[in-house]
């Protein structure tokens, strides 16, 4: 029996049967399990409302007050986010796991300079850091920005530059896991490519794991070697991207793939739609 | 039905929409509306069901503590405080409504004129508004009331003068926004008469702001009226204006006869708090943020 852990070390992220819900409503995420080793990149795909963003928040321990993890374990670098106390969770947040939001314009405080906000990520975990300006300058340089940009307010930077700042903040403490929630939705295609290139490079450098949450199959196809498909709170597909895209197991995935191929390939009269797959096939089983 | 018919049916007639307004208010706002209606009706019909009069003096029964026959006691001249508080409530509500109607009418009219006719007229109106807004509202009301002398009429004029400028400012920005929308230009190009433009194209859009401002002016007006009464301006005793009654009861309060001041104040609190609750609910329904600070209350 190959000891996976002995070869790769503790996985960056492991979910064991995780279920998440809001208030008294039915599970928003039910019974999800997967393992993500360091250095690997997975794209979680799904339509709006499938629970992928909830999953991302739960991994960070940032569910809103009416949400809770109802069952399961979320292990980041071996430590269980679900059972630990808030104080300990805070030590991991921004430190061992970083989060990059969809719209950097709204994840940056409009009234504080960008450099201050990067510094905050550093001092949250090492309050007595000396030469903080150097570290901030280094972080900016890492994402292709000038040290002088530290003095800028968010509205003075372009959308792409703001997203780079968000990446810098997420990476500044060398986390083992980076979660990117729709990191390029708000950007134009060219900037998208640059930002994703940057993200990929920096994550690889640090041998960190990347959890990319998106609805864009193209992005996943290009950048992630693993793919997970979520539908209505369940993980219906998980595996190597090449396999998932060419030979999907779950009918939902099949329909998704068909839709995105069809735009380029098909010369049929009607494009396939998501309603063309048979819901009844889902039944009660999970793909995993 | 065709699509158009269906849309028209769903929209409903103006009548149906008006009937639903009570239901759209928040729970506490509905309670407030009922409270105010009860107070108003009680005040208007007091002579029918309450035996004591509000102006009958009776030296022998002066300064009596609250009892069954005088639930709010009697004042220094032996008058029944409960009857006076009821009548005072009626005066406050009536005055508040009159003031609000006048302030909103004047303020709204000026705002529409200023908004629709840019240039010299707009400038003059804005200068006047700004000059009036340079004063804290209550201070301006005091000043005008002092200048005009005491009495119901001068108090009302004073408060209208101090409240219409804010209405003008709020409504004018709404009007300017609508002007930028283009359908006013379109109407003009079609030859629609100015008054029609105002009625059909402008008023419906500023009515939300006007309604909220109306409620706010009622609240401010009632408190300002009481304030004027307390300083000795505005409505004077023996007319049972609530503020004047509080003034009248201040000295007795120090001496131990607390009911003469406390009950009128409680009535004011009940009325004004209710109006404010209604105003808040209207703000939420009609999407009107706070006009001075921009906060979404």
């Amino acid at each position: 029996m190959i000891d996976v852990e002995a070869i790769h070390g503790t996985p960056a992220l492991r979910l064991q049967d995780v279920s998440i819900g809001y208030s008294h409503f039915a599970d928003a995420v039910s019974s999800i399990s997967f393992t993500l080793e360091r250095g690997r990149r997975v794209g979680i795909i799904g339509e709006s409302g499938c629970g992928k963003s909830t999953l991302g928040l739960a991994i960070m321990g940032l569910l809103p007050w009416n949400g809770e993890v109802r069952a399961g374990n979320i292990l980041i670098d071996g430590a269980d986010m679900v059972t630990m106390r808030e104080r300990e969770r805070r030590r991991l947040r921004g430190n061992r796991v970083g989060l990059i939001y969809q719209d950097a314009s709204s994840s940056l405080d409009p009234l504080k300079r960008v450099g201050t906000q990067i510094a905050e990520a550093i001092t949250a975990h090492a309050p007595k850091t000396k030469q903080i300006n150097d570290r901030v300058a280094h972080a900016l340089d890492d994402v292709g920005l000038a040290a002088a940009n530290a003095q800028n307010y968010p509205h003075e930077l372009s959308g792409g530059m703001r997203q780079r700042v968000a990446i810098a903040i997420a990476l500044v403490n060398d986390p083992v896991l980076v979660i990117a929630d729709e990191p390029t939705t708000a950007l134009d295609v060219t900037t998208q490519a640059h930002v994703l290139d940057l993200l990929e490079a920096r994550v690889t450098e640090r041998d960190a794991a990347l959890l990319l949450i998106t609805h864009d199959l193209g992005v996943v196809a290009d950048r992630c070697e693993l793919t997970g498909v979520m539908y209505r709170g369940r993980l219906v597909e998980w595996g190597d991207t090449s396999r998932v895209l060419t030979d999907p197991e779950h009918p939902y995935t099949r329909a998704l793939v068909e839709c995105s191929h069809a735009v380029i390939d098909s010369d049929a009269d009607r494009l396939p739609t998501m309603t063309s797959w048979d819901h009844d096939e889902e039944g009660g089983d999970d793909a995993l | 039905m065709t699509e158009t018919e269906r849309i028209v049916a769903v929209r409903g007639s103006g009548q149906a929409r008006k009937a639903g307004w009570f239901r759209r208010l928040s729970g506490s706002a509905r309670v407030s509306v009922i409270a105010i209606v009860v107070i108003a009706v009680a005040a208007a019909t007091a002579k029918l069901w309450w035996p004591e009069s509000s102006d009958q003096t009776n030296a022998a029964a002066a300064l009596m503590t609250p009892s069954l026959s005088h639930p709010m006691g009697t004042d220094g001249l032996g008058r029944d405080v409960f009857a006076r508080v009821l009548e005072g409530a009626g005066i406050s509500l009536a005055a508040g409504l009159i003031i609000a109607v006048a302030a909103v009418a004047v303020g709204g009219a000026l705002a529409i004129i200023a908004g629709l006719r840019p240039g010299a007229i707009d400038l003059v109106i804005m200068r006047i508004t700004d000059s009036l807004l340079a004063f804290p509202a209550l201070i301006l009301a005091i000043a005008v009331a002092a200048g005009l002398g005491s009495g119901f009429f001068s108090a009302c004029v004073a408060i209208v003068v101090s409240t219409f400028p804010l209405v003008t400012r709020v409504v004018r920005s709404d009007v300017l926004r609508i002007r930028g929308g283009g359908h006013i230009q379109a109407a003009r190009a079609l030859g629609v008469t100015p008054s029609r433009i105002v009625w059909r194209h402008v008023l419906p859009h500023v009515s939300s702001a006007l309604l909220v401002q109306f409620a706010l002016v009622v609240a401010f007006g009632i408190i300002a009226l009481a304030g004027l009464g307390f300083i000795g301006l505005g409505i004077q005793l023996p007319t049972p204006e609530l503020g004047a009654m509080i003034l009248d009861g201040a000295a007795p309060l120090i001496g131990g006869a607390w009911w003469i001041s406390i009950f009128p104040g409680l009535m004011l609190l009940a009325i004004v708090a209710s109006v404010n609750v209604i105003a808040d609910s209207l703000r939420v329904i009609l999407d009107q943020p706070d006009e001075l600070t921009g906060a979404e209350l």
Partner: protein
Amino acid sequence: MISYISRRFGLALLSILGASIVAFIVFRVAPGDPARQALGPFASDEQLAQFRADNLLDQSLPAQYWAFIRNFFTGDWGYSYGSGAKVTTLFGDTLAPTIELAVVTFIVTVALATWLALVSTYRPRRWLDRLINALAYVGLGAPAFWVGLVLVLVFSQWLPVLPGAEGQLDFTYSVPTVTGFMLVDTLLAGDLPAFGNAITHLILPVATLGLAVFAYLVRILRASLLAVGDQQFVLAAEAKGVSRWTAFRRHALHNALLPMLTASGIVLGQLLAGTVLVETVFNWPGVGNLLTRSIGLKDYSVVDVFVMLSATAYVLVNFIVDVVQLRVDPRILQEEQK
């Protein structure tokens, strides 16, 4: 930046000028015959004529107006009709206690409103929300002078813990007047018991004056915090490992301060108006008390100075608020340039 500031300043000056015209109309033109008003029904015709000549009442209106503003801005405020004292002296004696009351009230209400708004919004706590809302409605609906009487009744009569309508200090204490601010003067005189006594005398007036102001501020701040707190950058700060309280305090508050800043300017107006209503209740020797007495005596020489002073102070404070906002929110300039 400079052009924005100078434009606002120009507007401020225009407003003050306009306010002076309004004040002139209200006090010189409207009341009818000022001479008769000032000298009473028993004055002789010569006295009336003399008064008119002294006060330039026989001049044209523009000339009178010019004299009016010139006098106000040079500090030539004339003499009180009632007491004959110089109006400047009257104001000089009474300004300090009012400023002391207003400043202490401002500090207390801002601190309390900020803290309560933060505590009730950073984590949803319905009971606290309801309580604060109820308190706010009481503050908005209860006339300040009545609140004062209630507080005096409860805390000075029924539970004799605090002084009531007794001004700034028990008459048993005697403290030399240096600045006019009782808190400062008692400290300067080294009289600690008097200092403590002065503080107890401040409690009820501050509570009375502050209730309406608190209600106004806490509602605005709560609303802003709720709106801002939902924003992603607060959550993003937490994602860095910052605690929710700190994220709220550092980011949400900062962003919610903008409406609060604007509200501060309005608050000054409320405080000014409030002192007029509240000082009589507590026998507070301030400007509000002076005004109330002057109104009773129809002493317009005092009233119109008070009104002009209020307007000038109100406009200037709001101008300063405008400028401070520039520093707080760098986006304002961007908006202006569009």
